[in-house]
């Protein structure tokens, strides 16, 4: 999940956290797909941000930079199979986020 500004919200994004009004009453539950009408209504409520499902897509340059940081963090654990597995899992997750 990620928190985005309301101006970045688009139809079909899924709410990961409920939207509440200023009194704390839930206006829209988690799991609701956004529509133009809903986004309009949130704007009228002066809502600044929403939390939506899914990770932020990353560009390939950012992914390779992040991988380099991870490599650095694992630099003292080169002979450890568990650490090697952990690193590969993190790399695979990053690869899936290339948008």
């Amino acid at each position, binding site marked *: *999940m*990620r*928190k985005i500004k309301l101006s970045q919200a688009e139809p079909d994004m899924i709410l990961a*956290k409920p939207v509440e009004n200023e009194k704390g009453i839930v206006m829209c539950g988690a799991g609701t797909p956004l529509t133009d009408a809903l986004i309009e209504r949130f704007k009228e409520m002066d809502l600044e941000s929403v*939390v939506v499902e899914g990770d932020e897509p990353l560009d390939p340059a950012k992914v390779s930079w992040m991988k380099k*940081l*991870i490599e*650095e*963090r*694992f*630099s*003292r*654990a080169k*002979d*450890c199979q*568990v*650490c090697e*597995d*952990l*690193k590969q*899992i*993190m790399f695979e*997750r990053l690869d899936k986020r290339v948008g």
Partner: protein
Amino acid sequence: MLIDKDKFQKKVDKLDSFPAFHGILDKFNEMVQDPTISMGQIGDLISQDVALSMKILKLVNSAFYGFPGRISTITHALVLLGYDVVKGLILSATVFDLMSEKWADLFKHSLAVSKASGLICERRSIPDAEEIGLAGLLHDIGKVVLLVEEPDIYQKVVEGASKRGIPLYMAEQKLMGFDHSEVAGWLCERWHLPQRLTMPLTYHHRPAEAEQAAKQVAVVFMADNLVKALGYGTQPGAKVSPVPDEVTELLQIDRDLLAELVEALENELEMMDVEA
């Protein structure tokens, strides 16, 4: 050596200046040992300190302890979590004030390690997840004491470690002759904490050496390692440690477990950031 180990240990033994020792902890210890005093009376003692009670209830009710939004009084917390966990919470509440003010990243890191400890316990059906989560929360408490008691010197040690890209505990050993996990051990003794909490705090960098509570130590070591791998609230020089075979066996670590933990932990941490 930048800090004299014996002198510092003596200082820790007599840490009256440390905010955690405004008397309530010693009184709590005394009352727990007195069979004529009820849990309700102990609850009342803590409740007299309104600010402290609020902090404890906030910690208890955060998702860390698995009872979100359900514990409204200190006595209720005592019944559900037991004396040792509440004792640890009294410490956390006071120490965390200091931590969030002076070292926000360490605070984030500690919360994350607590979360990760809970996730490992859940995946491997390890009992007493609350207590192990608390050990995760407190594992770096020695750093806070060092920062409060020797701010100038310790700041230099921390900066030195970051600059040279080496783990902080190694820099501490090199420059001070002891590290923050030993300080945590001294504190645990001073506070009469049970071995189940003392061991993970003392051995979170060398889990294979722990003579007792091996499982608790293994969980906190691995939780700390996972959070370091994700780079959450950690020092620039922080490094993932090789996992000793003992830990791999005790927790039955395999690729599936790691994948599940990374996914669950990333979600939890995102949630924390979103709520922050």
